[in-house]
């Protein structure tokens, strides 16, 4: 397959086209807003395309270790055990995006159960560690936002 320009570069080039050639020629306000939104979504998608596989795989590894640590401190938590079993059977060896996403979603469910367990059990160090994992996830989402700010009312 053709690999360069990268997906990120192609999408950003589409953004440039929209903003420099398409938007100035539009007179309808609704269409202008739509183009601005599409351009934002494309810029977000460019960031995702560049990093999402690596981010999801790195986070998944951290989450799995965290979920195991919580399960060790609060054994017998059914929701956590169920989520960890599902994660263990995820298609983790594949780099196809659908498989990486499926594995990451299962990791997300395990993290949800682990965080609930840590808070309910008052496991302070593990709550703090869980917050750090959420911060990493949030940091990636902020990168994807690419400076987005809300508009309208």
């Amino acid at each position, binding site marked *: 397959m053709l690999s360069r320009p990268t997906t990120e570069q192609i999408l950003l080039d589409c953004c440039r086209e929209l903003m420099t050639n398409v938007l100035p020629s539009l007179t309808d306000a*609704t269409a202008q807003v739509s183009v601005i939104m599409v351009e934002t979504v494309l810029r*977000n998608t460019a960031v995702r395309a560049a990093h999402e596989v690596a981010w999801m795989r790195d986070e998944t590894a951290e989450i799995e270790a965290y979920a195991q640590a919580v399960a060790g401190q609060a054994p017998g938590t059914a929701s956590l055990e169920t989520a960890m079993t599902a994660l263990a059977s995820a298609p983790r060896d594949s780099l196809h995006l659908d498989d990486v996403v499926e594995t990451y979603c299962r990791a997300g469910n395990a993290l*949800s159960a682990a965080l609930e367990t840590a808070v309910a059990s008052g496991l302070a160090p593990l709550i703090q560690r869980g*917050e750090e994992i959420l911060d990493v996830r949030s940091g990636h989402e902020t990168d994807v936002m690419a400076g987005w700010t809300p508009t309208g*009312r």
Partner: protein
Amino acid sequence: MTDEPRLQKFLNHVAGDRGGTVTVFRPISGGYSRLSALATVRWADGSEESFVLRSDPPPDTGVFDSDRDCEWRLLEAISGKLPIHTPRPRWYDPTGQHLGAKCFIVDFFQGRPLSDIAQEPDQLSRAAEIYVDTLAEVHRTPLDVLPPALERPADWESYIEGLVEHLSRLDRDIADSNPALHFVAAQLAAHRPPPVPLTFVHGDAQPANILVPDEGPVLMIDWEFARIGDPREDLGYYSHLPVPPNLYEADPPGFLARYRERTGLTEEQVNEDTVSYFYVLGMARLLGQMFDATDALARGQSRGVMATYMMNGISATTTAFVEVARQLAH
């Protein structure tokens, strides 16, 4: 979609004896949910009236969903019953048979959006006072004037418990997972604030939804998310609204002192921590609608570019939720 010819035909149907002619029809842009338009009608006797039309977007489009039947019933019920003005209902097309979509028509109100007034630096304090006083009036509304169909929670405890549980379930039926919500819900459950009496809640209480006339009471619009709930949901919802200038952020102690004075609630009940708590609960419904809209795309049913555009809103909101949860715990 409602347009001028459809409105003309509708007026001929509902007010044919008055011989009205639509002379102006102009869509109002900027809203995230319903489609709005301004229309002026000249009647056969020479008088003129202006109206605001508020209609549903095309099916399976958009992000934020609400029930036009409920909003219309609510407007009819509260019209003239509150110390502030509410849109005066005129006509409703409940099926979209005439106007192309469920659409109601209310009287136009001559007033300036409070959000515009707040843009003037020397009017910031006045704008905050108007905002707080308006909200307090809404929260003092006697519940018996509200439509019987409006859900009445059994008590404060079960209401809050339900909201926290709702938050933790927002990602239950969607294709994605969102661990932040589970962490936040767990912290909210563990750090519940003192109760207050449940009241009428606007649900989208922002300065852009308050119109200020030259004289007399203000008019509050966009009642689509109104409900009976905890009044601090309105305070919390607005407290983090990223539309400058935020009248709460400008002076939280002064803002809350005035609200307490107007409502009689105590500092233990209404303070910056409880407002943060209710920021999460006040935003949870809308966050759920954002999840639903993006999930539709994940399942192959596009809701339009607004849905994908608002994925950024999901990220920004959940990040802010986690920060609140962290503050509650520490």
